[in-house]
């Protein structure tokens, strides 16, 4: 079964009168139920733009996004909920209130909100921080809260926009593998944007590789490693092979963009 279908998507901005900037074009992809899809590409390739369109935050210039057969015209967090790179928790609300924010917006009752929020907070392992404030938590913990906030909506798809981008290498590995395990349990589809090769492979059932701007899909790679996965997967030959392939694709793109490659003349 298919959750999300993107058909011939193009997004263009008018930067100045008469000057059009095409962020991405000819994007067609599907996300099956329960599938983990990662989208990777050089920075500025429009991968976040694609994600924003998938969640209805941005109207496509051409093409369309379908959710279970219906065209997506505005965000519906019950279908697809976002996790943003900068966490974007509300500093004036405590953790529990932050987790319940989407339910509050949806007009749910107070006890229902508190119950569901507490459940999801426990689920990401932060139950004891219900009454803390966002600034009292580390970046990794704040991002878990943001995931709990998205999960509280019981969405079919989770749209994650470089969720670990602001963390250091170590925390992003641990949090990443943690998070991947947690999301496996929820049986939800996940679309994850990243520019980290390791992240892209570790999370994915399928990796979508995008070219530099204007971003198009240049390759799709399936990752067949069994789940649940743990960090030892990163040392296996299959992982390394895909990593080399991705490095090639993305490094190639970067080199095309900037005429003087930094790493090794080819």
């Amino acid at each position, binding site marked *: 079964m298919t959750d999300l279908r993107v058909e011939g998507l193009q997004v263009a901005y008018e930067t100045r009168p008469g000057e059009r900037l095409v962020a991405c074009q000819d994007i067609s992809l599907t996300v099956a139920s329960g599938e983990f899809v990662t989208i990777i590409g050089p920075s500025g390739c429009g991968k976040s733009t694609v994600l924003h369109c998938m*969640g209805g*935050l941005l109207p496509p210039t051409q093409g369309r996004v379908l959710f279970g057969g219906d065209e997506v015209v505005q*965000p*519906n*967090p019950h279908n697809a*909920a*976002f996790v*943003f790179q*900068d966490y*974007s928790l*509300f*500093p*004036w*609300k*405590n953790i529990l*209130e932050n987790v319940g*924010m*989407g339910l*509050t*917006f*949806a007009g749910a009752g107070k006890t229902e909100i508190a119950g569901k929020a507490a459940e999801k907070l426990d689920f990401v392992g932060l139950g*004891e*921080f219900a*009454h*803390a*404030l966002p600034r*009292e*938590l*580390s970046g*990794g*913990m704040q991002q878990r809260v943001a995931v709990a*906030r998205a999960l509280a*909506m019981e969405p079919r798809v989770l749209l994650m926009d470089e969720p670990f981008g602001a963390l250091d290498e*170590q*925390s992003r590995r*641990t949090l990443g593998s943690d998070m991947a395990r947690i999301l496996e349990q929820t049986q939800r589809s996940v679309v994850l944007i990243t520019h980290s090769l390791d992240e892209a492979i570790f999370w994915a059932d399928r990796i979508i590789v995008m070219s530099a701007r204007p971003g198009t899909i240049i390759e799709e790679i399936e990752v067949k490693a069994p789940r649940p996965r743990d960090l030892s997967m990163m040392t296996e030959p299959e992982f390394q092979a895909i990593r080399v392939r991705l490095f090639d694709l993305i490094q190639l793109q970067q080199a095309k963009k900037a005429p003087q490659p930094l790493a090794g003349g080819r």
Partner: protein
Amino acid sequence: MATTESAFRARAFRARAKHSSTVWALRLLLLLIVVGAWLYGTGPGEISFLILPPLGEVFSAIGGLVTTQVFWTALGVTVFEMLVAFLLAAVVGVSLGFFLSRTPLRAQASEPLLSWGYMFPVVLLYPLFLLWVGVGIGSKIAYAATAAFFPIAYNTLRGLRSVDEKYLKVGVAFGASRLATDRHIKAGAARPMILSGLRIGVSVVMISVVLAELLGSNAGLGYELQRAASTLRLPDEYGIALLLLVVAVTLQRVLELALRPRRPGQKAPSRATEPAAQLDE
């Protein structure tokens, strides 16, 4: 990490405590200097009674004033005017700020007007208020509320307009209605600005009410002050001025405490800091 941070906090707290006791000692010293200068001026300094009455006489005037019905009635009138004017300015100013912040067009059109109103000395219009509303308490309330409205509305609008885009994006992504966005996102993000507008409003109301009573009225502490001055009851005049100071400072403190930026969701503040260290890595 959490332990070094708490140690740092404790040190900062101790330094602040030491600092604040020095500040209070200096404040007391300044007060003593003023009192000393007053005593010297009216005693050996031979300053005219008409310029500065002796401190003792001012205090006995205060003692007399607080036993009279006239004083308490006047005080009641003045405090009533201040509270009503502030309430009016706050309600109208804040709600108009929210209304104007809803679209960029409204905000851009109205912001300069509000800032001009903020800078304009509204007291120049006081004679008009007298004309429109009469010499009673209505004109004081209308004038003071108008004067305080501008800083409140201006700060509210500014605060609401500068809400970080990333919070608004969460609202859109999670399907917040406009009302929910106002209530849960914009009000929270703009809270410090709105509160600072309200605190400015408090000061403006105080000044405006007393000024209006001095300039033209038939009741209130400002009116009594004006009467004492014109009949050369100098100790009474100084007495009322000092009592007015006490009233204004008290009222200001009470309202400021009510409007202080509070820590949101304050329930278990210390609990969170410790386990944070383990989960950090």
